């Protein structure tokens, strides 16, 4: 759907595509998250009206699931896999080094809105452990030393947020 349709109409289109069934709430939120990389408050208000659901229930769902974020995400999304397989291959040291170099805590977005660093429990590429995703692209067999190189890749990676 084109980017320029104003947000309220866009949300209505998404809700309508699910016939405003209240059970499709999570899917609707996922499409809004996909579109705007976060869930704007006005969108939740709109969904509450259109799907006749209490705003408190929607807010509960929006804050429960890790796939949703109420704050806008950074231009680049860096996901460090902290699944067990990667953990035993010391993904913890890579995560801590990324936090140091990118000056952003896990689960947060950098103040300059450039980078969002998040942890994910297993992306299913355990052979490559420890693995880091930058805007959806996998980087495997990492050691703490290579984190510096990784930070460069993040800086000049052209693609905007898509994951």
């Amino acid at each position, binding site marked *: 759907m084109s980017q320029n349709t104003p947000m309220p109409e866009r949300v209505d289109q998404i809700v309508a595509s699910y016939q405003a069934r209240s059970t499709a709430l999570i899917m609707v939120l996922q499409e809004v998250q996909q579109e705007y990389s976060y869930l704007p408050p006005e969108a939740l208000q709109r969904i509450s009206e259109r799907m006749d659901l209490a705003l*408190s229930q929607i807010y509960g769902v929006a804050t429960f699931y890790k796939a949703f974020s109420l704050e806008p995400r950074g231009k680049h999304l860096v996901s460090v896999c902290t699944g067990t397989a990667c953990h035993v291959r010391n993904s913890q040291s890579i995560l801590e080094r990324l936090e140091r170099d990118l000056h952003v805590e896990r689960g947060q977005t950098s103040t300059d809105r450039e980078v969002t660093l998040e942890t994910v429990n297993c992306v299913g590429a355990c052979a490559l452990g420890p693995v880091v995703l930058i805007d959806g692209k996998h980087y495997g067999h990492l050691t703490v030393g290579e984190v510096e190189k990784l930070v460069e890749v993040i800086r000049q990676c052209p693609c905007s947020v898509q994951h």
Partner: protein
Amino acid sequence: MPKVNITVDGRPIEVEEGSYVLQAAEALGIDIPTLCFFKYVKPYAACRICVVEARDKRGRTRMVTACNYPASEGIEILTRTPRVMAARRLNLEMLMSRCASMPVLTALAGKLGIDQPRWGTGTDTCILCGLCVRVCDEIVGAQALGFASRGIDRFVTTPFEVDSDACILCGACAALCPTGHIRMEEAGGRDVVHSEITLGPNAAIAVPFRQAVPNAPRIDPDFCVHFRTGGCKVCAAVCPKECISHDDVERFEDLEVGTVVLATGYQDFDPTPMKQYGYGRLPNVITSMEFERMNNAAGSTGGKILMENGKEPGAIAILHCIGSRDQNAHPYCSRVCCMYALKFAHLVKEKTSAEVYQLYIDLRAFGKGYEEFFHRILEEGVNVIRGKGAEIVRGGKEYPEGTLLVRCEDTLAAKFREIPVDMVVLCTALEANHDAKDVARRFGISVGADGWFIERHPKLGPVSTTTDGVFLAGVCQSPKDIPDAVAQGSGAAAQAMSLMIRGEVEMDGAYAVIDDEVCSGCRLCNDLCPYSAIGFDETKKTSSVNPALCKACGTCAAGCPSGAIRALHFADEQIYAEIEGILS
């Protein structure tokens, strides 16, 4: 639902299949501690404090939560095994390590035998029991609250942690919150006590006051949550006799009756317009009805005479004839004030050590034993001043804070006086109900200039009216005290009964008759009749006389421009014949 037999701590009980084990234990008087259970919302089983051991027929035991474990045939419930107690204690200690030490937790700790929680206490005041969320959702139906986030960050909030416009300020969450984490507060930030909330959860259904007649609870639609959100109806669910229905609506009913006794009473004169007395402006200036209410044991002060600040007054002034015998208000004397004023004086003397000042114009103690009562009051040391209270002002700096000065002219001592008192009781006039005129017109009786209904005859017919079958009782006919009102009431009832007993109305032969052919429907006669005996038939467009009400005075016959009305026994031709006879 089929019944099943289970045992709780070895004691057998028969319960409905699928009903929760907690209720069975309660029925047996066995106490199972709970934290997140509330009878009228669905069990949530989040606190796990109510865990018990359940042993099924095959002897397998497992730990289950009593609040939502369904009873099935033959299960044995053990509520106090070591394993159960250990689990409850540790769970509570873990909760206390996060939450501040609050009565609900320390009480439960005491019950479970924890004197010192292993990890001490924390700071949070929310124990995440979810009672608020569930009551707002299942009972109130406003769904203003909800859980947000998950795991150890889970907390209760309104969306986006800002004031929610779904909240209807009913205070149910605050009332139910076991720890006081949720408080009700005015926009200005002042804490609000539940009883003050207009929509307070103090039950929108209650007996209005102790002696209310009928002495039955009634629902106040302005405060009932159901009428705000369509939810709740807990009262209906709880009432064993199911006599609560929320869809009753006010409706008018037409009663076919032959006799009516009007006993519509009076209303209190509002002294506010009389600025000189400062009612509503000065503190502790109250009307006699308010003073009477204060003295009532079921009243707000439990019968004690107290000022607004809760202390006992040192001196009280009782001002007679406020709004009565007053050209600017009601010229008539309200008859009852003198005697209740004396009663007030007696009450003050009996209950407090306050000085009492009675300011009267003429003390009318006319009834049996009244005069003797007046003398007894004098002996009790009541200061009686013959002079109407003219004005009440605040005491100056020289008087203690809150003193009121009663300015009046003591006509016996021929002096102007300014009496410092702490409280002033205004004996306000009895005035006719604001809708007296409408009621009168509806019942075809007339109202005097002072608003009281007019009786058939001031001396000979005080309980009946010019309209047959309509009787008067009580103050609506004129101010009177209780003995007189009772007497009049009995009289009215007796006369009404006399009509009702006979079952039919005895009419004498004479009454007026309207000839439809001649009547032009000008309706001139309709207002002529003082007994509103002449009605108008919309379909035939002619007037007609109700013989039962017609007194045969003939006024209508004389007034009818087309001569359509014949007054039987005094018909026109009869009178003409008389004239012809005496002049021939």
